[in-house]
């Protein structure tokens, strides 16, 4: 292999002619072209094989073992999976908490993002500043600092309980109440509406103005225009955001870990799937069990995504489908 563009290798470069494929003189050079390609791909391929594919496959094997990190894994067949669904009450609770979270946080987040995108789509002065400002929570929201702040805001002496006290609602601590703690995390998620908002904005800009003009001429009000034009035209974007949000919120970890002090408390009310997985793996040293949980999560997300795709043909309208 040579490292310089020698005359032969220049010849071997694909020429902009129709017969370029057939014109390649010798197989050796095609191979050397590919080698170059692989060389530049190498960082990604090595990363993929060693840090993604490898560990993923190993975790599949580990999910059939009992493994405490310190001693060699011991094969126990499907016992981990059986345990998950038949014996482990905390696991079933974690599933319930996570599904509740996803079912509430995702639609609320999307509705909020769409509402703000509509507002920001209007032609007002200094719009760029507003857009940037509303995007900031998305950059900060997943961080540890915000999760700690959240604990303060919804704590016993926090702003929320003090504000409610003004209206005569008895002060209480949201983060330390089993019935309310999950809501603080849902609100935290809804607050991070920035990236779906930007995507919605882009979608809104694509809708032809003529449609609205025509509707106005026919005497349609804003509400009717929203449901009959905006929503149908936006369904591909809604669908895209929905899929992203479902996958992201099933994997939410940081907010629950920090807000609950790493325990999923109070009373396991914020014990997200990923948090329980982490606790089993890294606090209880049940890596085999945690691996089994990870694979079940993969199946859950896969099935839900597949269902979303299957349902999409009934409610997502692509522009070209009218042709």
């Amino acid at each position, binding site marked *: 292999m040579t490292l310089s563009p*020698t005359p032969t290798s220049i010849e071997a470069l694909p020429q902009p002619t129709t017969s370029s494929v057939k014109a390649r003189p010798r197989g050796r050079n095609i191979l050397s072209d590919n080698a170059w390609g692989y060389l530049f791909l190498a960082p990604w391929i090595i990363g993929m094989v060693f840090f993604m594919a490898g560990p993923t496959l190993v975790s599949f094997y580990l999910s059939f073992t009992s493994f405490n990190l310190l001693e060699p894994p011991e094969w126990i067949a499907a016992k981990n999976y059986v345990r998950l669904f038949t014996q482990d009450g905390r696991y079933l609770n974690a599933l319930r908490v996570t599904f509740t979270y996803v079912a509430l946080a995702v639609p609320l987040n999307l509705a909020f993002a769409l509402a703000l995108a509509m507002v920001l789509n209007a032609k007002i002065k200094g719009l760029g500043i507003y857009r940037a400002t509303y995007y900031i929570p998305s950059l900060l929201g997943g961080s540890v600092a915000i999760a700690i702040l959240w604990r303060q805001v919804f704590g016993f002496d926090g702003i929320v309980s003090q504000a409610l006290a003004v209206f005569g609602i008895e002060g209480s601590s949201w983060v330390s109440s*089993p019935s309310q703690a999950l809501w603080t995390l849902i609100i935290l998620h809804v607050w991070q509406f920035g990236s779906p908002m930007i995507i919605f904005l882009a979608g809104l800009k694509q809708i032809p103005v003529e449609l609205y003009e025509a509707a106005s001429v026919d005497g349609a009000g804003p509400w009717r225009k929203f449901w009959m034009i905006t929503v149908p035209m936006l369904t591909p974007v809604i669908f895209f955001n929905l899929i992203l949000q479902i996958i992201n919120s099933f994997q939410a970890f940081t907010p629950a870990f920090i807000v609950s002090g*790493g325990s999923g408390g*109070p009373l396991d009310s914020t014990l997200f799937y990923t948090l329980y997985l982490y606790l089993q793996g890294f606090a*209880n040293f049940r890596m085999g069990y945690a691996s089994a949980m990870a694979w079940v999560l993969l199946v859950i997300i896969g099935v839900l995504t597949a269902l979303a795709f299957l349902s999409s043909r009934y409610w997502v309208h692509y522009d070209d489908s009218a042709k």
Partner: protein
Amino acid sequence: MSAGLCASEETIVTKIEPGTLSRRTLLMGATALAGLPLLSSLAHGQDKIDMRIAWWGSDDRHQKTLKMIDLFEAEHPGLTMESQYGGLIGYQDKLSTEFAGGNAPDIMQVSDSREALIKSGRLLELDEYINSGELDLSDANKSVLETLKVDGKLYSIPWGLASGCYFIDTKVFADSKVEEPGLDWNWDGFAEKAKAIADATPDGVYGSADIWAPAGTRSFYPFEFFLRGRGKTAYTPDGKLNFTADELTEWFTFWDELRKAGVVPPAEITALETGFETSPIVTGRAAMYPINSSIASSLQALAPNPLKVLSFPSGIGSTALSGDKYGAFINSSMQVYVNAASEHKDVAIQFLNFVTNSPDAAKIHLMARGVPLSSKIAALVSPDVSPIEQSMVDMIQYVQEHAVPEVVSWPVQGGQIQDLMQRSHQEIAFGQSDIAGTVSKFFDEAEFILE
């Protein structure tokens, strides 16, 4: 410019043709680069040693430990100690992962899983070094060392002696005109004092924190004191639960009644605590707080009023949680261990010896991890300690004199049983389950965990 030089330049140019970087040239270059660190290490002499040490704690402890390590490095030319420190949350997770990855520190504190680490041979057994005199424990309290052994072997030395204790707020006691309890108090006395304070103080101030305070001793450890008071242990030597539903019911009921009477805070307040920094004795919501005594100077630094350290109440002469023996004991939290895979075990042992016996180290460290193991060192630093540390010394002294010797170490899953106990308290406190239901659920879940 001579013709010769020109000629040689020409030769070089023709030898390395443009773009044909030969494998040999590459290899030579790489070897030369790889050799550089080797050369620089030769220049420093051959005694260059790199080691790592890990601990958890608060800022006060970090600063004192770092200074101590500087001193140790100064005594060992060529030694570089890399420190890895932070808070307790996540500490053990990281350490265990490092052990699994084969890059654990040489010297470390271990928080929750020492049994698992010992069982898998990851921690160095110290008896050989004690016998050879490399590790001098002649001034150490022998009975304490005895309680730390696992299967008759010693794997750690205390970096300071500690026990679960109650910190009391002396100002609230004085303002409420309640007499401070003595070290010989019992559970009846505890309930009485706590109730008197709750009555004398405004609403929102409680007699004591609840026993499941998340950053405190947490409930299982004091429960073990209670069982030991009855001459029992929490676990059998083969790692099964060694107590009955009646005993657990008694324990839950005692705390439930105090909570219902408004003597300890309701669940929402207790659940809010994320660290001892937000504990009710710091925020002024409770006059007594159960936590490990090693935290004394850090806790006093945060608390608004002067504190005092008291041993845990016993069951002796008490009607509630009665027991005829003294159940509290010196615990194994502030222990220092050596990695069995360390390349510099001898230096690590020297460090253990240094923290145990060096007067200079002791003058820096004082009681940042509790009372020094060596009685000689403890006497040496006692003039320098603060009032809170002095009351900690008195408490440790008292526990050492009265404790029942036998300690059965926790099984590998002990930490999970402790978490289960915490959740059980929460279920009762939040009113999600009655005591009878919680107790039977406890035993079901414990069986699943210990299986």
